[in-house]
């Protein structure tokens, strides 16, 4: 791909303030209209460890953190020691030469030592090395100082005039030093364009829910889902959303069910361990036919696993969550924007069909920070609450909460409407809500009610868009994916096209109910199918095979905690085309 496409990394220990330079650069690029995608590799630690933030910026939209490193900022010696030898020619390396020794570098690596104390002056705050590094980065990329100055003022405005002025002064000194001493970067930033917005994946989930009319949100903190809680806590009061931090996930789901029963749109979010605690509640919502939305942000498992690493490992957990056989909706959005645009629809479907909806996100989507075109962000989507009875009507006095209907949807009266009094229960029941589980467990009644509930799945499936192939219909290879891998698959397909391999893309978002017939038709029309998954045993492939009877030709799997990079998929496809391999497990080069 020609044009501007540049990857900056910042390495340091947790607590060294990596987030701040990351935020400053993200804001800076967005203001200049440069697209940005950031991925942070870090550990479950408050101080120390090794955090490695990758910020890729480009003149076109990007959905991955790329394949290479063009510039590395070392905030500590450890970063230098870990990564220097892996850097190629023309990479710039910025470091504080007062405290960090450069190591052995490949030919052509451009070292940019900064004697921070000399530039900043005595007694300067330790975090000033971050400002120095950002200023050098901007200078190397040919970004005007004024743009940086504006963002620094914005970033430090809350911390007082003095700190603001100090940072600008230090930045200017570093900028000038860089101009006088270092070669420009291997690429120069493009001319400023229309400013973009910056958001984090979890923010997209929270904003979408707020737009969809969520009035109750609760959670127990669990990485990597906590960002949703933080956004809700910060904005809930103003938006009129009841936000609760609850004592555990069992209570979280029960409160969500209760609030939804009483009539407000309700959502909760967690990660796999918390979801495991919620499972009994999922079935309860299904049995009582109460619409709730649960977000499960997957992290590397099992159990506590690797809290700060990504994986698509919870598919079967959500497929099998809770005892019994019951209707539910499960989907895996492919990006923050996709989540943002889909979530209102998920609420509408949950309301229409009165069932639990589970959204499978993962750390990769929820934790990313990226630029987004603000014009795409509409927080006033269509709200359709389905067959909801909110006032007295003809049926008053004869209301049956679980009335038998062809669609399986029984109009839902909110508690408190005279003449519509009813009992909901997790026991099996008759149309009027009377339990059939204690006195006489009438098999015909049980069958009729179970079928009524399950009929909802037919309507729901018909409402979901069928899967589709993107790209050349005659392609040599079809890459099949689900959820968060869409972006990296797309980029790999672009690279493969340049290498002369034609590849198209079949991506699944809606998982339950599943358009099996359409999927079989599409898959059977493909020449060679390779499935890409972020897990060990091909969890989605096993599901796909179960639903369709179709077996794909090859697999690309990664389960080391780090996400795929485009070249991992490119190399794997080539290996499978040339060598006849059927399973590729790409090797992760960056060790954090």
């Amino acid at each position: 791909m020609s044009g501007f496409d540049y990857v900056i990394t910042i390495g340091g220990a947790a607590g060294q303030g990596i987030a701040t330079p990351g935020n400053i650069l993200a804001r800076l690029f967005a203001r200049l209209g440069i697209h940005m995608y950031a991925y942070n590799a870090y550990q479950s630690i408050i101080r120390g460890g090794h955090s490695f933030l990758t910020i890729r910026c480009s003149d076109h939209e990007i959905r991955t953190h790329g394949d290479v490193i063009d510039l590395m900022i070392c905030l500590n010696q450890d970063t230098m020691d870990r990564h220097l030898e892996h850097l190629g020619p023309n990479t710039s390396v910025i470091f504080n030469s007062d405290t960090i020794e450069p190591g052995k570098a490949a030919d052509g690596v451009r070292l940019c030592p900064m004697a921070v104390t000399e530039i900043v002056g005595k007694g300067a705050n330790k975090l000033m090395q971050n400002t120095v590094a950002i200023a050098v980065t901007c200078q190397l990329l040919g970004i005007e100082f004024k743009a940086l100055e504006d963002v620094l003022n914005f970033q430090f405005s809350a911390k007082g005039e003095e700190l603001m002025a100090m940072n600008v002064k230090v930045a200017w000194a570093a900028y000038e030093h860089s101009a006088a001493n270092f070669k420009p970067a291997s690429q120069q930033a493009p001319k400023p364009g229309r400013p973009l917005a910056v958001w984090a994946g979890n923010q997209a989930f929270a904003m979408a829910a707020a737009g969809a009319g969520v009035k109750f949100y609760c959670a127990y903190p669990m990485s990597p889902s906590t960002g949703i809680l933080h956004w809700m806590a910060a904005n809930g009061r103003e938006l009129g959303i009841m936000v609760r931090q609850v004592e555990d996930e069992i209570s979280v789901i029960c409160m969500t069910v209760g609030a939804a029963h009483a009539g407000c749109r309700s959502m909760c979010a967690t990660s796999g361990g918390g979801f495991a605690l919620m499972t009994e509640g999922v079935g309860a919502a299904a049995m009582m036919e109460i619409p709730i939305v649960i977000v499960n942000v997957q992290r590397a498992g099992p159990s506590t696993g690797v809290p700060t690493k990504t994986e698509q490992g919870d598919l079967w957990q959500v497929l099998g969550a809770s005892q019994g056989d019951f209707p539910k909706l499960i989907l895996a959005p492919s990006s923050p924007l996709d989540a943002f645009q889909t979530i209102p629809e998920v609420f509408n479907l949950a309301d229409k069909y009165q069932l639990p909806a589970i959204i499978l996100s993962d750390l990769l989507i929820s934790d990313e920070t990226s630029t987004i075109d603000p014009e795409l962000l509409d927080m006033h989507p269509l709200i359709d609450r389905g067959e909801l009875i909110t006032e007295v009507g003809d049926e008053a006095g004869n209301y049956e909460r679980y009335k038998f209907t062809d669609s399986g949807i029984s109009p839902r009266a909110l508690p408190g409407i005279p003449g519509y009094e009813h009992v909901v229960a997790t026991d099996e029941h008759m149309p009027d809500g009377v339990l059939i589980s204690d006195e006489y467990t009438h098999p015909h009644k049980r069958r009729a009610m179970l079928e009524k509930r399950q009929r909802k799945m037919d309507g729901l499936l018909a409402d979901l868009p069928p899967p589709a192939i993107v790209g050349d219909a005659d392609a040599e290879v079809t890459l099949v994916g689900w959820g968060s891998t869409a972006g990296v698959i797309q980029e790999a397909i672009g690279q493969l096209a340049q290498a002369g391999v034609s590849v198209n893309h079949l991506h699944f978002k809606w998982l339950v109910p599943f358009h099996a017939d359409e999927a079989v038709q599409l898959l059977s029309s493909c020449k060679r199918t390779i499935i890409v998954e972020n897990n060990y045993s091909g969890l989605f492939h096993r599901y796909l095979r179960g639903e369709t009877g179709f077996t794909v030709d090859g697999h690309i799997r990664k389960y080391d905690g780090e996400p795929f990079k485009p070249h991992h998929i490119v190399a794997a496809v080539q290996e499978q085309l040339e060598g006849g391999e059927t399973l590729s497990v790409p090797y992760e080069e960056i060790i954090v």
Partner: protein
Amino acid sequence: MSIKLNVINLEKSEYTGGKSSLCPGCGHDQISKVIIQAAWENGIPPEGIVKMSGIGCSSKTPAYFLGKSHGFNTVHGRMPSVTTGAAMANKNLLYIGVSGDGDTASIGIGQFIHAIRRNLNMVYIIENNGVYGLTKGQYSATMERGSTKRKGQPNDQPPIDLCKMAINLGCGFVARSFSGSKKQLTALIKAGMSHNGMAIIDVISPCVTFANNDESYRSYGYVKDNEEPLHVADYIPHFSPIAEVDIPEGEYKDIELFDGSTLRLETISDHHDTSDVVAALSAIHYAEQQGKHVTGLLYFEADIPTADEVQGLVDIPLSSLPAELMRPSRAKHDELIRKLIG
């Protein structure tokens, strides 16, 4: 210089653990040091100890002490039930549980209650900072109302006082301490180790990253200024003759512990009667009303039957029962079959 050895001839280094990855200054690290000191001075063989924990910064600490002991890092909030299982399978080990206020008072409160009710034989240390450190400082259920963390709104929820709760549940050993009061904490942890039954030690342990500001009721500064010790605590191990220990000048009371050791409590101003439930609860209540933290041994009662005693566990740990005891005897077996034949 000669190297100091404990009564079982081990150096202190036999009791240390890996390097801590917590934030420098975190209260939890001080508690780890005290646990090391206490286990070493009490002369407990490291291999006879099991460290239990849940999930949280606090629950990570077993990696930083007693490196030669066994450990079980469970899932969030479930340390008490996992410990119950372990203690039933092998009751001859010393179980030291380390938990956080989130781990215990939020997600694990039901487990905490039932472990006390069972009188599980263990030392249960809560490293209580009032926040969920590991998930970046949200208020937990023990934070005082009105207390304010760094960069936050004041906490608007009332706290759960774990000591009050433990006393009400009939726990026989309930103490509160502060990670900055090393001497008192060491004596209490040693005494907990010598106790037969559940020993709850709720330790205020400031989170320097998220709640160590002046407006936090759980900051070092605040606790130092507002700690109200009930007594000076001294632990006299069973292996050093009590007759040789100096008698304090003022009023004091000796508490005899299960293994023959003694906890000597020297009265500071008013005498606190550790055998009086009402006195214990009112001490907590008055301190709370005045924004103070009362510390020391709040309540003590020996001889409450422990979980293993109630279950009638045999002396041999279930985990090491010989094959012939693991299944019905030949006679019993034949009898069972005969019954089936009728």
